[in-house]
Structures are given as structure tokens and as C-alpha cells.
């Protein structure tokens, strides 16, 4: 796998990133580089900054970058609005997808898909063409078309919300997808559906970052790299067997690696 992507330029580079929210520092020098076709896993305790990292990459307005940079396709994206990042191919699968009453899921998916297609200079889809496309993608996550007529995530079970996220990823065909604890709250069957959906969508052009606590997702989707995050830094990087070590020893084992470089 490593040799396959060796010559490619990274799609996402996070260089010495420091960030805070309401003056509280959360990220304290994160480095990560993802090439097309690679799958990275980020593991770590709750509160170590994993979700913050994903939201900052997507452009959440509550966080402020105090030092360092994020590059997407070689460009610094700090000045881009969240929608511009999304249109250009950055996708964040939310840990807790929010409910939006009154806004139809189908209409939302269509507007989002067309915004991405417009960026790619592809023809925008009308209601009929879009319905054909979405029905095809629904199969990937084994969702019923009844989901489409409901309001965004409203009254969805935890598993349905996560499948809806993967459906969005399938429609938007991102270049980098960050999936924040997509496996949490899922039973084994739902986890398999979600994992197989991700695998079917992933391809040689797309980089994927899986943020997770559990080995069981990584059993389904084998990562090329595993990063361990602690207190706002990546303290260890290894291959997929690192996740197995973590599973065996727990996060306490990683405390020895801490190398605060303040």
C-alpha cells in the first residue's frame, strides 16, 4: 500500500497546527499528511482533540487557528468558508449529526450534491435525475427511500443518522473524508453496513481519515496508518497493528509516548 501512493502528492496536509476555542488551547501542534487512496485512523481518549481536528478541517467557526496550517491539494484553506471547503471535496462525517426540522432530506441532499457538481463543472441534476442517482446510492447503505421524504435526521435512530452521513459521502464523492466516530453507537449489523458502504465508496482518488475508539471498525476497514492522539498532539504513528496493540494495552500504554514539545 505504501509503495502504491509513494509518488503522489498529499491531498491533505496538517502542519504543526495549534488551535483554540474561547481562548482554550485544544490542538497543540498536530501533524498529519494523507495521500489519495490512503486510509488513516486516529485514535485517542475522549477530549484529546480528535473531533476538534475534524471540525477545524471542515471550517467550524467556533475554533481559531493560532499557529500552523492546513493544506488541501497544496492550497492553504484557512480563509475558505465551510461551504467552499465542502464544494472542493472535503467531507466531514459527524459524530452527532444534527436534526433540522422542516427541511426535507431529499431536497437537502440534492442541493448539496448540486453544489459539489457545480464546483466540478458537472451538470446540475434536476429532481428526476437526482432521484435516480440517490436511489442507486441508497443501496450502498441499505437505506429505504422513505428516509428521503423525512426532515434531515429528524427522528432517525443513531444508526440511521450514521447511514445518512455515509449516503451523503457517497453522493458528494469527496477527495478527503473525515469520519468522526462513525462507528459509535452502532450495533454489529449496522457497523457492517456502514463499513461496507465506506469501502465501496473509497477509491484511489480519495483519502480517508477514520476517527475511532474501537478496533472493530478497523477489522472491517484496514487502515494504512494508525495515529494515536493525546492532549492535542499525535504522539505515535504506526501501521494497522498499532491499533491492535492499543486494543490490548489500553490508552494508558500510550502515556509513555507523550512528547510534549512546548
Amino acid at each position: 500500500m505504501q509503495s502504491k501512493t509513494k509518488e503522489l502528492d498529499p491531498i491533505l496536509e496538517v502542519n504543526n497546527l495549534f488551535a483554540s476555542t474561547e481562548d482554550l488551547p485544544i490542538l497543540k501542534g498536530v501533524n498529519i499528511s494523507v495521500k489519495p487512496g490512503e486510509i488513516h485512523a486516529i485514535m485517542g481518549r475522549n477530549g484529546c482533540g480528535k473531533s476538534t481536528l475534524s471540525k477545524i478541517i471542515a471550517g467550524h467557526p467556533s475554533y481559531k487557528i493560532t499557529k500552523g496550517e492546513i493544506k488541501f491539494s497544496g492550497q492553504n484553506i484557512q480563509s475558505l468558508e465551510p461551504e467552499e471547503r465542502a464544494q472542493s471535496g472535503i467531507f466531514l462525517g459527524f459524530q452527532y449529526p444534527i436534526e433540522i426540522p422542516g427541511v426535507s432530506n431529499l431536497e437537502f441532499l440534492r442541493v448539496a450534491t448540486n453544489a459539489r457538481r457545480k464546483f466540478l463543472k458537472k451538470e446540475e441534476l434536476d429532481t428526476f435525475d437526482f432521484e435516480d442517482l440517490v436511489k442507486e446510492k441508497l443501496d450502498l447503505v441499505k437505506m429505504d427511500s422513505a428516509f428521503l421524504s423525512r426532515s434531515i435526521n429528524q427522528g432517525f435512530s443513531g444508526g440511521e443518522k450514521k447511514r445518512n452521513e455515509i449516503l451523503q459521502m457517497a453522493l458528494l464523492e469527496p477527495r478527503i473524508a473525515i469520519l468522526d466516530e462513525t462507528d459509535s453507537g452502532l450495533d454489529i449489523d449496522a457497523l457492517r453496513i456502514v463499513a461496507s458502504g465506506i469501502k465501496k465508496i473509497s477509491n484511489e482518488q480519495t483519502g480517508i481519515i477514520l476517527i475511532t475508539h474501537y478496533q472493530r471498525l478497523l477489522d472491517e476497514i484496514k487502515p494504512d496508518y494508525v495515529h494515536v492522539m493525546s492532549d492535542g498532539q499525535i504522539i505515535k504513528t504506526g501501521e494497522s497493528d498499532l491499533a491492535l496493540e492499543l486494543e490490548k494495552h489500553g490508552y494508558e500504554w500510550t502515556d509513555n509516548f507523550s512528547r510534549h514539545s512546548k
Partner: protein
Amino acid sequence: MVSENLVKDVVSEPYKYGFVTDIETEKISKGLNEDTIRLISNKKEEPEYLLNFRLNAFKKWQKMVEPNWADLGYKNIDYQDIIYYSAPKQKEKISSLDEVDPKLLETFDKLGIPLTEQKKLTNVAVDAVFDSVSIATTFRKELAEHGVIFCSISEAVKDHSDLIEKYLGSVVPANDNYFAALNSAVFSDGSFVYIPKGVTCPMDLSSYFRINSGDSGQFERTLIIAEESSSVSYLEGCTAPMFDTNTLHAAVVELIALDDASIKYSTVQNWYAGNEEGVGGIFNFVTKRGKCLGKRSKISWSQVETGSAITWKYPSCLLLGEESVGEFYSVALTNNLQQADTGTKMIHIGPKTKSTIVSKGISAGNSVNSYRGLVKMGSKAFGSRNYSQCDSMLIGDQAAANTFPYIQSQQPNAEIEHEASTCRISEDQLFYLQSRGIEFEEAVSMMVSGFCRDVFNQLPMEFAAEADKLLALKLEGSVG
């Protein structure tokens, strides 16, 4: 239809209707006394009963005090500083549209309401009112074939005096409230609709109200009568130029539905709202009421209120007939320094009457948006039911929303249900939509139209599309 053109106009500029038509007008001098009223009545060559109706209303008005119970704040209105009659100068008798001043036709053209034979809208009849007078009413011949009368109220006074004498003031009495009394004394024009027994009106009827002059008030009066087993859908739209003074608009609308008749009355109100600092804009004090006189009759109000500096308006239903039905669907949006105090009254008098209230208030900027509604069950209203739902949405942290529901029941065997909610567009919801590539403004407008869906579903289709665009436009730049 009306709205398709309107939609295009609406989205292109913040307030596209702010222009003034430069036209010679006949205005009477400022101020209000008995002579003013005699002058107006004389100009319109009114019969004596109508002059007496006006004078009687004026006497009552003089004894009344301006109400101050609404959650509104504004400078006192100087009623002597208003012109009560202003009309574009025209030939005395106009026999066809070709004789209407081209400037007026052009004005309505610009507003998206073409009136001439060649260009007029195909599926809706329009009565165009300019300041104090009705300019033209389209499709009158076609409607007359079905026995439907659609004309200005001044013409109705001349040609259908029996109906006017019988019904004018029968729903909103001259002394009903301060602004209704003022209107009854000085009303100038407005629309009249009569649907005969058993007739389903073959097309939508619509009135378009245009205030052009800055120093005259508009006091129009609308009367709609639906005879047994008839039905009609009526739409109204309103715009005004941008002046830095406030203009008073005090209208009265009366609806009467007999046995098995149904009236649907839809409004998109887009009077000039004043600028961002709250300078200028229309003071909109309106009394709208429908009387479900007949058994199984139905009156349905739907309104989208986006304009005016101040809105004071409570379209109501008097449910007299057994099993009659009243409905009120409302979206009221306020931005900047706009104030709205709006809602409805559902007065259940007859047995087994039903009413539904769905109100959606959206407040942005520094605006204040209040719902005020009364549901009353009279002693004979056994088996009657009401359902009310009042939702408020706040945008930003400076806007305010209030809900004032009043419930009175003298009938133990009546059901009243009231639900209310308040929400704020959250940063996380916006971020979710944005993180899928949806522009910020569009994300807001998706959420606002989602919030209003229950009401928009009640509007005639073209009106709904217009309303949606109008809201998006009004909210531009109000978030963030």
C-alpha cells in the same frame, strides 16, 4: 400569474417597489373633520345612507382613544397631518382600459401586474387600487357570465347598492375599534366581490394595493359575499414607495359566507418597512374579519406579513353557523426595527364549529414579533373544537418574540388545544448545511422555509413560491 413576475422582481433588489409614479393627482387638503367626510362622499356621489354611515363612524371615532395594548412603540400619529383623499387625475368616465392614464398602466406593469387586454394575466382577475381609487378591474365580462361581481367598492355603491346597504359594516361595525371607525368614516376605495348561489368562482380574484403618495393615508375597504354553496379564492398584494416619513394604512376587510360557502383569503403584505435605522415605512393597522353565517360555511385566512414598519392585524372568524370552520395560517417576518403584533380571533358561537390556527413568527435584527390570539367558546358552542399552534423562530440575539394566547370558554363541552414553541437557528445546524457545500444564506433560507412549510402549503401555489423568495430576500444579511 401575478407572482411569477413578482418573484423575478423581488429577488433582484432589496426593495424593488420603492419608486414613485410622477402623476398629477387630485388631493384634498390635510386634516379631518365633518367637511372632509362630506367632501369625500360627495366626490364619490354616494347615497345618503352611506354619508350617514360615515358621519356616524366619525362621531364614534372622535370619542374613542387610540389603543395601546399591543406590544408596539411608535410616535403619536397626527391625524390632522394626513391627506384623506388622493386620486390620480383622469377622465371622469372611463369606458375602457385604453382610456386609463398610460403612466398608471406602466406603474402596475412595473409591479408585475399588467392590466391591458393584450398583456393581462390569464388566470386571475385583478382589481388595481392606486392611493384612494380603483384604477381598473380585469375580466369583468367573463366573470359576469357566471354571475360573479368583481369591481371597486365605489362602483358597487352605485350599481349594487342593495348589497352594500345590507352587508357593509355587518361584520366589522363602524365602532368596532379605533382604526375601523376611522376607516368607516373616510374609506375611499377597495374591492367588492359577490359570488352567487352555487357558483364556484372560475378564477382567482386578486386586489393589488399601491400607495404612491407620501402624505396621504390609504383607507381601503373590501367586502366579499359568498352566497349559499359558492366558493372563491381571493388574493391580495401590497407595495408602497420608500419615503422617510411614515404613511398610515388602515383598512377594513369584511367577509360573509352563507350555508356551505367557502372563502379563502390570502395576503402577501410587502409594504415598505422603513430602512435599517427604522426611518420611514408604513403603519399598517388593519381590521379583517369574516362571518361564517351559514351552516357548514368556511373562511380561511392565510397571510405572509413581511413588510410595514408596524403591523397591527388580527384576521378573525365569527363562527355562527352550525359546523362552520375558521382557519388562520400566518407567517410574520420582522427584521431590523420592524414591529409586528399580529394573530387572530376565533369566536365560536354556533355548535360543532371548528377552528385551526397555525402561526409562525420569525424575528431577526432588532425586531419584535408578537402573536396575539383569542379563542372564545360561547355558551352554545357545544362540541366545538380549536387547535392552535404558535411557533417562533429567532435569528440573531437581538430579536424578540412573544406569544399572547387568550382563551375564554363558556362551554364545558368544547375542546381547546394550544401548542407553542420557540427556537433559534443554531450555529451547529447552519454548520451542518454549510459543511455539505450549501451557501450560508441558502442554508438560512432552507431552514426558514422549512419552519414555515405548514403555512406555505396553504397558500395558492404561485403565492407560496413568491413568499419563499420574499422571506429569503428579507433575511439577506440578517444572520451572522
